[in-house]
C-alpha cells in the first residue's frame, strides 16, 4: 500500500523538515554519498522509525537533523528554523533545549552520578541548582531509577544507563527526541523496557521521537517507518498498515 503523505499530514503540524539533503564524505579521491537527496517531513507528536542496514546513512541522517553536522547541500528546518542560519552559540541553545539525544553507547559522563548526569544539561541552560535537583529527581523517577540517583555509570547495567541517558535527554523539555540505535547495545529485555519507555514519552508527554534502529521490536511502538538504503529513502509506511513479522522486515520492499 502506497504511503499517502497528503492524507497523513492532515491536521498535523510539521516539526522537522528535511529538504533534499546530501552529505558526501571523501574517502581519498572517492566520494561516499552517505545521504543522497533525502526529503522528509516529520510531524509534531510523531514516533518515526528510520530503518536501514548498517552503513545506509541512518547516523548521518541523525547528525544532520540534530545539528551535529553540516550537510553538504540541502536544508534542515526545525520548528521552522533553518539550521544553516544558526551560529555556534544558537546551535548550542537549540541542542540544549529543543532536542534530546540518545546514543547507542549511552555517552554518560563516567565520573558523575546519575543525578549529576541528568542535571548537566540544566546547568548548561542556567537552571538554578535547587530546581535542577528537583527536576532531575523527577526525571529519574520517570525512568524508574530514583533510588539509583547516587550511582555512577559503572555501577549500573546497560539498560539502566540508557534510561539515565533518556532522562538526561529530557532535561530541558525538548520537543524532539533523537535516538540513534538506542537498543543496539542492550539485551532483548532491556531493549523492550527502553522502547516502551520511549513509547510512553511519545504518547503521554507528546514528545516527537525520531529513532534510527534496526531492532524490529521498536517498530511496534512507532507511528511511521522510513526505510533508507544507500542514503536514499526507499520506502515510507504507516505502522498501522504494516504487518510486523520478526526477521521479515527490512529494505526488501515487501511492506
Amino acid at each position, binding site marked *: 500500500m502506497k504511503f499517502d*503523505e497528503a492524507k497523513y499530514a492532515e491536521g498535523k503540524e510539521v516539526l522537522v523538515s528535511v529538504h533534499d539533503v546530501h552529505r558526501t564524505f571523501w574517502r581519498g579521491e572517492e566520494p561516499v554519498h552517505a545521504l543522497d537527496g533525502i526529503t522528509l517531513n516529520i510531524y509534531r507528536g510523531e514516533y518515526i522509525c528510520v530503518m536501514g542496514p548498517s552503513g545506509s546513512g541512518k547516523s548521518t541522517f541523525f547528525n544532520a537533523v540534530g545539528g551535529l553536522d553540516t550537510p553538504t547541500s540541502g536544508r534542515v*528546518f526545525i520548528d521552522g528554523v533553518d539550521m544553516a*542560519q544558526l551560529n555556534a552559540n544558537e546551535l548550542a541553545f537549540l541542542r*540544549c533545549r529543543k532536542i534530546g539525544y540518545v546514543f547507542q553507547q549511552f555517552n554518560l559522563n563516567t565520573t558523575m552520578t546519575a543525578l549529576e548526569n541528568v542535571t548537566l544539561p540544566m546547568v*548548561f541552560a542556567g537552571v538554578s541548582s535547587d530546581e535542577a535537583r528537583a527536576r532531575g529527581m523527577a526525571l529519574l523517577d520517570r525512568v524508574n531509577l530514583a533510588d539509583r540517583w547516587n550511582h555512577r555509570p559503572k555501577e549500573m547495567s546497560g539498560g539502566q544507563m540508557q534510561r539515565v541517558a533518556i532522562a538526561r535527554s529530557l532535561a530541558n523539555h525538548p520537543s524532539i527526541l533523537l535516538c540513534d540505535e538506542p537498543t543496539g547495545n542492550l539485551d532483548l529485555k532491556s531493549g523492550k523496557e527502553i522502547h516502551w519507555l520511549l513509547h510512553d514519552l511519545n504518547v503521554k508527554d507528546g514528545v516527537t521521537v525520531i529513532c534510527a534502529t534496526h531492532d524490529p521490536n521498536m517498530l511496534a511502538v512507532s507511528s511511521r517507518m522510513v526505510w533508507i538504503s544507500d542514503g536514499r529513502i526507499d520506502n515510507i509506511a504507516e505502522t498501522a498498515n504494516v504487518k510486523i513479522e520478526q526477521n521479515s522486515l527490512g529494505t526488501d520492499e515487501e511492506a
Partner: protein
Amino acid sequence: MSSPPVIREIDVRKQHRMSLRETWTLCIRGVKHRLFRSALTLAVVVLAVAFFMFLLCDSMYQRAVGKGVDAEIASSRAAQIQLTRLLTPATATSAMRHLAAAEKAGDEAALAEAASVTGLPPEEIAALAGLAAKERLYTDWFAKMPVGRRLILVKRDLGRDALRRILAEPDAFFRQLAIMVDLRVPGPRKADGLREFLAVFPDYVSRMDAFLDRWNAKVAEAGRFTSARLAAAGDPPETRWIPGAPEAETEAWRASVAALGFSFSPEDLATMRSQLRDANDEADLADRLADAAFRDAWKVKFREATDSTAEEKMGRLGDKRARELLADAFPAARLDELAANHSAKNRLSKLERALAASLGDDSALLGLSGRQLFLLAISFLVCMVGIANAMLMSITERYREIATMKCLGATDSYILSQFMMEAALQGFFGGLVGVVLGFAISTVRSALAFGGHLWAYFPAGDVALCALFSLAAGVLLAALASIQPSWSASRMAPMEAMRVE
C-alpha cells in the same frame, strides 16, 4: 512531497553564558577522578617544576651561604684588616676600592669616617665615592674582558692607566668599541656613561689625590703614636704588643688614634686583642709542631713509623699524649680552642673556594648565571612541549565526552575554559609535588655540601619566593600548553568528535 515551510520567526536565542563559578563547580566535580588518571601529564608537570625549583633553590642556597661565609671570613680577619688600614698608607687603588665598596653597600659609617679623617666636607666624600664606584666599574670591566679584546682596546694597560690611555686617544677607542658589537659597556647609558665619566676623570683624579694626601697624613700620625707605644714597650711588633699590653695602655693608644678621626671603637679593640691573641697562639703552636726536637718526641710518643705532617698533628690535639707533650706551653682547654679554631678556618676556606663562582655577578636575574638561565629556558621549552603533548593526548582521549557535552548544550567557550581550568589544576597539584620534590633534593644536596652553614644562613624568604615562582610556572605552563588542543577540540563539530575512537 511538500516544499520547505516558510521560515518562521526565529525564536532561537543566545545560549546561557556559564559564569566562571558554574564552570569551576562542574570542573572540580570530575577532577578528583581525573586528576590521577592523567598521570602522564601530572608526571611531566612534577618533573618540570621540580627541576625549576631545584635550580632556583640551589642558586639561592649558594648565594646565601656564600654571602654568610664571606662575612664570617671578613670578621675573622677584622683585626688584620683594621691594623693594615690604620698603619699602612692607602694607595690610589685601595682608596678607590674602599670608597666604591662603601658607596655600593650604602655604608654611611665608612663615608663619615672618610670625611672625619680627611676633614673634607661630606658632600665631597659622597661625590668622590660615586665617581670611585664608576672607576671601579670600568676598571673591573677591563680586567674581566677577554685578553684579545683588551689588547686591542687599551693595549697592556690596566686600572687607571687604561682610563688614561683612552683619554689620550678617545676616538680610536670608541671606534674599536663600536666594531665589537657584542661587547657591552657596563653601567647606565653604556658607552655614553663611559664618555661622561672620562670627561670628569682628570678632575676626579686630582680630587682623589687630595683625598689620599689628607688620609695618609693622618695614617702617618697614627703610626707615630703606635711606634711611640711600641718603643716604650721594648719594640715588639704590634701584633704581640696589643694582646699582651695592659688594657689601660692599649685603650689610651686606641683613644689617641680615634681622635684623628678613624673609627676605632673599644669593641673593635677588644675584638682585635682576642683575634691577635688567637693568631699568636696559632703561630706559636705551628712553630712548636714544626720544631725538630718536638717532632722526634711526638714520633716516639705516638709510635709512628714515619713523621706525620703538622696538619695531621693538628687533627690529633685532642689526644692525651699530645696534651702531655704540649702541657708546658698550652693548657688543655686552650688546645681545644685552638684545634676548633683551626678546623673552623679550614672548613671556611674550603667553602670559600667552593663558592667562589657563586658570588660572581650580583646583577644577574635571581642570582642565576647566564648558563643556568639558558638551562632554565631550555627546560622551560622542553617541559612546554612535553606538557603540550600530554595535554593533547588527554584531550583527544576525551573527544566523545566533549561531543556529548556539546550535544547537551555546552558552548565552545565553556569547553575551552573547562579544559584550561583542568589543566591549570593539574599544573597546580603537579606543581605542589614538584616544588616539594625540588626543594627536598636541593636542600639535601646543599646540606651535604655546606652542613651547618646552610641552616645558619638559610634563605627562607628567597626559598618561599622560588616556590611561588615554580608553582606559578607549573600552572602557567600547563594552562598555556592546553590552549591549542582545547581550542581545536571545542570547535569541532560533535559528529566528528563522536567518531574518533
